[in-house]
């Protein structure tokens, strides 16, 4: 390729490392986040592979029980606090929210940079705890175990506490940005659905995260000063911690999945070249989910000794929160109807999302129903269920978004063939790893077990093999993505023929996002009025 004078874009203008480290450009901050969460995902993934390797056979394979307990805790904590919560909003959201609403940046660029460095600072505590004896409490830090264990609980909880601020800052920034920075003519109902999803997510981030912060602080107080809030010997209540913890952590589940749902709306519309079906239903179901998600935390405690009445109410509300998610799935599928569907890699991820997320949602019904939850609680069934939602849902959506916007972010196209191979490996590997765990769980295999009875071995071995397939998929993905940065074909401005604003600027976009301020000439999904050829493939 002949590159005479490289065009100016946000990647090469301005130059120098300082321009990156102190950047206020939401795109660069998005890229910094992207690099960081990718590192976190890699770290969490290594832990996951080690867990599965240890579980290949009963008894000791490569590590002792204490090491195992630390590794599964780290896997959970890293994946949740360092990867999945910031993944879509802070990386892809940061980069694309202003572009999608035609703005030059987010409302508070300095706050945005601060949120990134707070994220780095919090992560350092988490990493520090890994080297100082690690934690072995599980990512849920249940008391009284977490107040008694000798491992370094404090650095990890402090890390999660600090990370919370990063999340709150991002949320605040997005709320104001969405309210104030839309270009003229972009009314609320003309917002791309990814923006709606980020909005609903931001509300939960701002409202719920402080509760986690307080809870973790109390835990630290308890460890350092033995104040006795959770300590039964001093009249405290260990179950109270669970209430506090889940009051944040259930809504946090939606911090993780809602942005993913937003991406799926974009992908399905673009690749079927069809106006999204039920725009308002999808938008409002995000808000509905955000609201009800605050009222269901007790479904994590059906066997913790809470009253039958409380259990009944929480069970009922849990079913209610399922309905809006179901509605979204039906809307997406109906969008395909009479579309012109093109199966590029991002779309393949969107379709696997539909497949896997549906399984994740339906298996949630088993856990929401009281009688079956008593049996399934704290077994591998739960492990499988939340991996179908978090990985089959959020991670698939994230990968879909990453492949969708990669050419926009870096101006380079990745190898089509290898991206499909990797996608198939990830899909197959995921199902092999986790579907087997549904059966393990309902057969009675408890979670967080270092060792297990012989009858569970075949399924455990099967699951471990799945983790290797999954790992292979991710390695291939890493290779072709990195390769594309250096050797990739130059991407056009609008490779997929999308109608949202990010496609109306250069790939990669210039420093101030748009050379000419975009105009609201059509809605984000007006594929019935506007025709833009797909320029790739």
């Amino acid at each position, binding site marked *: 390729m002949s590159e005479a004078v490289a065009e100016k874009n946000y990647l090469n203008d301005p130059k120098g490392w300082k321009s990156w480290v102190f950047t206020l450009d939401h795109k660069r901050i998005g890229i910094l986040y992207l690099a960081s969460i990718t590192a976190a995902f890699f770290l969490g993934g290594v832990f996951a592979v080690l867990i599965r390797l240890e579980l290949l056979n009963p008894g000791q394979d490569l590590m002792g029980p204490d090491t195992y307990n630390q590794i599964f805790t780290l896997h959970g904590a890293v994946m949740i606090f360092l990867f999945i919560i910031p993944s879509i909003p802070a990386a892809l959201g940061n980069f694309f929210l202003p572009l999608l609403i035609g703005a030059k940046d987010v409302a508070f660029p300095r706050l945005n940079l601060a949120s990134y460095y707070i994220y780095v600072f919090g992560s350092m505590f988490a990493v520090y705890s890994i080297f100082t004896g690690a934690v072995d409490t599980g990512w849920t830090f249940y008391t009284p175990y977490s107040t008694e264990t000798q491992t370094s609980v404090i650095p990890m909880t402090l890390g999660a506490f600090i990370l919370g601020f990063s999340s709150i800052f991002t949320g605040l920034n997005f709320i104001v940005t969405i309210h104030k920075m839309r270009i003229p003519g972009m009314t609320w109902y003309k917002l791309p659905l990814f923006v709606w999803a980020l909005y609903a997510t931001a509300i939960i981030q701002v409202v719920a995260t402080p509760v986690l912060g307080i809870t973790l602080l109390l835990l630290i107080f308890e460890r350092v000063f033995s104040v006795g809030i959770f300590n039964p010997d001093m009249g405290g209540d260990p179950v109270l911690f669970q209430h506090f913890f889940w009051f944040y952590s259930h809504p946090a589940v939606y911090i993780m999945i809602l942005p993913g749902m937003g991406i799926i709306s974009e992908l399905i519309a673009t690749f079927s070249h069809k106006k999204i079906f039920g*725009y308002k239903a999808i938008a409002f179901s995000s808000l509905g989910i955000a609201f009800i998600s605050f009222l269901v935390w007790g479904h994590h405690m059906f*066997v*913790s000794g809470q009253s039958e009445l409380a259990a009944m109410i929480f069970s*009922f509300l849990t079913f209610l929160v399922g309905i809006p998610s179901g509605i979204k799935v039906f809307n997406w599928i109906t969008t395909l109807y009479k579309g*012109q569907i093109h199966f590029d890699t991002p779309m393949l991820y969107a379709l696997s999302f539909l497949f896997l997320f549906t399984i994740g949602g339906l298996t949630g019904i088993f856990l929401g129903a*009281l009688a079956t939850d008593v049996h399934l609680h704290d077994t591998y069934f739960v492990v499988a269920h939340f991996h179908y939602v978090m990985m089959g849902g959020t991670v698939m959506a994230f990968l879909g978004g990453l492949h969708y916007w990669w050419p926009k972010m870096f101006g380079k196209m990745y190898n089509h063939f290898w991206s499909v191979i990797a996608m198939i490996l990830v899909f197959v590997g995921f199902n092999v790893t986790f579907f087997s765990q549904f059966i393990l769980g309902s057969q009675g295999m408890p979670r967080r077990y270092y060792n297990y009875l012989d009858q569970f071995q075949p399924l455990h071995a099967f699951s471990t093999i799945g983790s290797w397939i999954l790992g292979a998929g991710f390695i291939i993905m890493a290779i072709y993505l990195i390769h594309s940065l250096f050797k990739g074909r130059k991407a056009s401005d609008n490779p997929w023929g999308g109608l949202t604003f990010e496609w109306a600027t250069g790939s990669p976009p210039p420093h101030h996002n748009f050379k000419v301020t975009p105009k609201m000439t059509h809605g984000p999904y007006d594929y019935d009025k506007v025709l833009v050829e797909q320029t790739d493939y």
Partner: protein
Amino acid sequence: MDDTTGSLFMPFGGSTIAGDVDTVFNFILYTSTIIFALVVFGIIFFSIRYRRRGKLALTPDISHNTKLEIVWTVIPTILVVIVFFMGFNAYLKMSVVPKDAMEIKVTGQKWFWSFEYPEAGATTVNELVVPIDKPVKLLMSSQDVIHSFFVPGFRIKQDVIPNRYTMIWFQATKIGEYDLFCAEYCGTKHSEMIGKVKVVSEREFENWLEESSMSGEGMSLSDFGAKLYISKACNTCHSIDGSAGNGPTFKGIFGKQVTFDDGSQAMVDENYIRKSILNPQTNIVAGYQNIMPTFQGLLKEREVDALIAYIKTLE
């Protein structure tokens, strides 16, 4: 046991409640399989039917269909309300303890279960023996962190919490052995905190109860000790063949010098062993952690004697 195979998803159900739970499980399984099949069919059918062929063209504006939207809101809502009631009903049945239930006291501690039959005065460790066809109520509490009492074959689970009683009941319907797990993460040996529930006939149960409440009469003291070494779960941490475990081996310790973690020393004699069993926290053997549970209140005088006698024989 004759036919005790479970289904693909569920292990064999050996309690009165298991049938109810499985009914709810299967109802959800079948309806969600149908819904899933419809979803997948929709995705695949549309994907094939409406795949892009030839040149890109405008697509129709289909963004609403009130009837359709009502249908896919109302039908799932009805279904989940049904599921909710089914689940709640079976749960109520689990929660309401029959009046005539036999009571057994359960203690969870790192990392074993102990069971106390208050009327007979018998205690066991990691093995709960119950008669068939009789409601059994478990009154549970923990000595340390939270544990959870889980018997998959009975479809029951309940957290066991320090400083508070939690309750659970069941009625076994089939003679045999069932796995018992700790389902709430509790540290190093969480996955070893497992045991058995042994369901026996009424007659066998009476005999067993009589035998285990006896104080080792008609048995030499050291033979009784050997039995206790297993039934009180000393063997989970202490070996008798010199091999290393969570605790020091019993082989040849009697009469030896031990060194504690503070550097002081003591000679292993009867009093030392007694103190080690009843107040293990007072001295910690060098190289080991302070994880031995106290057996204060769990062992009778004669049982302590028997254990000491037994340890003396291990040379």
